[in-house]
């Protein structure tokens, strides 16, 4: 066991640090809006021009082919330099692109992958429905084959960035007689097609981030199907395993910075009793506990890389990391609320007015999205502990 970086790792870190120092935009991302989407695309284009796009994509598809450790180095440096996050490029870079690489046709790869890497194409996800959240296999949105098109009718839910995305990874039921995981199809949907209606859903943070998407007789070329008709579940699973691999690495690295920022805040904020927050034993001990937890997150992350390096596939242990990270994020949010006093309530319904209060609310998104904490516990019970099936 070791925690050593190789000389090549150190070289990479130096290159990343130097590039970031002269390329991180001086302006902040605008409030959630089409302008914010443009900001995400512009940053992605800049990353591409600098040779930092598709870090985890294989080189033959235009990526950098980075190992997990190399990705961690990048995210550590990017966070340190206050570089923009992937934001609305995340689905394209971490789900859509990797799914096409794993299962797409040559035409699909040739058309879409360069557009993702350059920031030209934003993708959104079309998996969840009003009646299919944690129980994803309960999908009812219909797709029926008519000649060389797939005609889609139904509704998707929680579509992040759907209001400015160009494409969607869409999961539909193509066999009406089928149940559960069988009879689903994964298809690339152009969000400009006629028959698509997008309605905003305001989050409790006050921001327009997610949407409902309605499909009325939407005609998608059959050539956009990834894998075969009826293979949608296995195609979707190739992204979900990926999601629990390194997709949240940036969040894990960022958490360590958030606790350090909170410690700095506690060193200058007075509590209602007049004491500096950091000098209050209860606050100081809670800060120290969260600090220790963020240290453990880095250790778990590296242990996870090591396991994947030995076993070659992301295992169910990723669920343990997600549960621990999101629980820590929540503890951090509660602590921030406690330390900042009345300032916690100074919030104008977008993240720029008060990032800590926004993060406090975002913590529920983390414990619910991408497999809720309850679903993660089920995965651990089944696949790590081998307990008898509940279902």
């Amino acid at each position, binding site marked *: 066991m070791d925690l050593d970086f190789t000389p090549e790792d150190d070289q990479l870190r130096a290159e990343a640090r130097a590039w970031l120092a002269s390329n991180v935009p001086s302006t902040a991302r605008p409030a959630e809006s089409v302008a914010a989407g443009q900001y995400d695309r512009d940053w992605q284009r800049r990353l591409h021009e600098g040779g930092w796009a598709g870090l985890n994509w294989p080189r033959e598809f235009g990526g950098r082919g980075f190992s997990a450790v190399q990705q961690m180095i990048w995210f550590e440096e990017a966070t340190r330099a206050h570089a923009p996050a992937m934001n609305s490029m995340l689905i394209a870079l971490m789900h859509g692109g990797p799914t096409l690489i794993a299962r797409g046709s040559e035409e699909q790869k040739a058309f879409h992958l360069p557009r993702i890497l350059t920031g030209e194409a934003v993708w959104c996800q079309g998996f969840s429905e009003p009646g299919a959240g944690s129980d994803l296999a309960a999908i009812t949105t219909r797709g029926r084959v008519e000649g060389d098109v797939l005609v889609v009718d139904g509704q998707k839910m929680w579509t992040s960035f759907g209001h400015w995305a160009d494409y969607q990874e869409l999961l539909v039921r193509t066999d009406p007689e089928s149940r559960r995981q069988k009879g689903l199809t994964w298809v690339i949907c152009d969000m400009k097609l006629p028959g698509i209606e997008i309605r905003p859903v305001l989050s409790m943070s006050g921001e327009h981030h997610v949407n409902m998407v309605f499909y009325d007789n939407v005609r998608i070329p059959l050539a956009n199907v990834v894998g075969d008709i009826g293979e949608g579940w296995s195609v979707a699973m190739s992204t979900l395993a990926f999601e629990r691999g390194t997709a949240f690495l940036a969040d894990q690295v960022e958490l360590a910075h958030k606790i350090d920022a909170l410690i700095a805040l506690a060193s200058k904020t007075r509590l209602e009793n007049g004491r500096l927050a950091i000098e209050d034993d209860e606050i100081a001990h809670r800060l120290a506990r969260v600090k220790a937890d963020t240290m453990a997150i880095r250790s778990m992350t590296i*242990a996870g890389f090591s396991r994947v390096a030995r076993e070659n596939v992301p295992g169910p242990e990723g669920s343990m990391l997600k549960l621990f990270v999101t629980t820590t994020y929540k503890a951090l949010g509660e602590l921030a609320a406690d330390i900042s006093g009345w300032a916690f309530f100074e919030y104008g319904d977008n993240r720029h007015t008060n990032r800590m209060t926004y993060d406090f609310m975002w913590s529920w998104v983390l414990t619910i999205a991408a497999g809720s904490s309850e679903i993660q*516990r089920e995965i*651990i*019970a089944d696949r790590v502990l081998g307990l008898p099936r*509940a279902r």
Partner: protein
Amino acid sequence: MDLMPGADEHAIADAASAYLAGELPVARCHRPAPDRLAAEQLEMIGSLGWFGLSLAEAQGGVGLSPVEDVMLFREIGRYLAPVALLTTALAARVAALGGDDALAATLLTGKAKVALLVPEPADVAMWRVFDGTDAVYALAIDDESTLYPLDATAVKAIDCLDKTVSMGLLARAGMAAAVRLVDPTIMQHGTLAAAAMQVGAAEAELDMIVAYAKIRETFGRPIGAYQAVRHPCADMAVRCEAARSQLYAAAVALRDGHGDAAAQVDAAKLLANAAAVRNADSNIQLHGGIAVTMEHDAHLFMKRANLMAKLFGSDRALLDRLVDNRLAA
């Protein structure tokens, strides 16, 4: 960059487990005097190299590192083996680094057992003594560690909740040091190994309830099929994974002399304490009534976890240090 044990590290754990399963099984804790180590056992353990595993060969040790230490002490924790195994190993390190080669050799070969001395908050004239029975030396650990010859008959015995240790009180007056050593890493080695013992206990607690949840039936189904049981078990597994990963990171940091080693070790003990104590709670609760009986193993782990959560770094002490070292920085 690798935090998964390799074949050599697993071999250390497997060998330790094989010895402990034969000589010091958990079942012994249901018989009288589970704190005792026979003289032959102590010497055998000495010959296995456990008291000098991470001590340099030049100092009479095996020449391995804190990484191998955590593999060993995790097994010691899993079997609820005596705390004196850790105290004796630390005493051997103090003697060796303090220049008393003869005493170091005595301790490394298991010819003498060492008791642990802890300051008594209510009475500065007294030590609280752990594993004083049959001990010939006693060790107090701080930034300066002190190794004393011990007259075991001078220890006033007090029944301990955890019967796998003996506990007592000892007057400080008249004790003459055999070795004194100013070296803050002694406590770091102790805290790390104690964290390993807590991780081993936390894993044993998880294994115990998972095995039971597969066979115990209520309302016609195994209890492991109920989410009210499955989800706390999953949380136990997460506590083990977090504490184990941090344990490995801390062991590497201490081995390689990283600048943040002290904080990494403190964080490891903090997570290990939580894993052992809270998993002990869940293990008893999910077992139900059978686990509050004396004949069951669950209470043994609960008692040991709570004791070890106070020795070699209580949560309060660890958090205070993390506040001072990390938060102020």
